[in-house]
């Protein structure tokens, strides 16, 4: 059972990318880190900028802004370190964000079939309707078995 099936009210982290705000379920957030040196090496995954070192761990940096707001972040203020379930363990991904993050409690509305793959749910906060992100659809190499939005749950289309 995913967090989306378990919870109506959920603790979320609001993050800012440019002028827009998005949310991640707090369970998927390890920490907010100050920008640090990014290491780059030859690789072929275009969504990955490089890696940072965090607590002795190598964490890939994945800029999700291009997908969500149509442009890369010019100024990175922090890295939101998110976690994904990967097999039996957890996989860390650093998401560059352009502003401070906020922890909130909110009621979630599950995404509908017409919503983008990267939307796991919606929440309403201070009069703003905010997308709760599906990290598994936004970041490369995710284990789809752990996605809160199962690809098999989409309605069947019959001709």
């Amino acid at each position, binding site marked *: 059972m995913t967090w989306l099936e378990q919870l109506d009210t959920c603790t979320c982290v609001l993050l800012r990318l440019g002028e827009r705000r998005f949310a991640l379920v707090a369970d998927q957030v390890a920490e907010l880190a100050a920008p640090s040196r990014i290491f780059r090496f030859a690789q072929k995954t275009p969504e990955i900028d490089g890696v940072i070192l965090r607590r002795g761990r190598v964490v890939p940096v994945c800029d999700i802004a291009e997908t969500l707001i149509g442009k890369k972040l010019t100024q990175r203020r922090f890295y939101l370190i998110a976690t994904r379930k990967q097999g039996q363990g957890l996989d860390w*991904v650093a998401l560059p964000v352009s502003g401070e993050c906020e922890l909130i409690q909110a009621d979630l509305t599950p995404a509908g079939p017409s919503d983008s793959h990267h939307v796991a749910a919606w929440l309403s906060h201070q009069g703003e309707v905010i997308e709760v992100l599906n990290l598994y659809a936004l970041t490369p190499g995710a284990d789809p078995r752990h996605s809160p939005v199962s690809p098999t749950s989409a309605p069947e289309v019959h001709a």
Partner: protein
Amino acid sequence: MRPAAVPKPTPARTEQIILFRASNQIFAISSASVQEVRSVDSLAGAAVEISEATLPKVRHAIRRTDRHLYVVNAPLHFGLRPTPAALIFLLRQSRVALLVDGIEKMTTMTRLQALPAAFCHEERTWYRGLTVLDQNVIPVVHPAGFLTPAEISLLDAITDPQSLLNAAGTARAELSL
């Protein structure tokens, strides 16, 4: 009463590695997987030229006893800008010789971290993992990741006239059926 025995700390497993440069980037390879390091000049006369459009990273083969070793240009393999190479690593128990810019140093790594799952393309074949040395992240290459068995078979077919003849004979035999 005797105090409980303090368990001996297990020594960290270390591995000797060679840090090498390819197109101004640093990579690591296990010393154990490198049989010989030769200068490019020393092999100038011994190399056979290869022109296979699907494998631009292989331009030469070196005849060794009864078979060819294929010279893989490291920058091209990693999708980097080609640079003048100075050294060739002949890999142990492998049909690959690796063309590199130079050796940075030899050192020891104590920890190899798995490549994070977010890396999900060719780099998963290229690298055994990542290591941290002097606060730098260095990819540790997979010696078997330079050429696939299918690519080696293709190169064998090009370089070995006997196999070409055999292939032609098989083709004729099939056609005559």
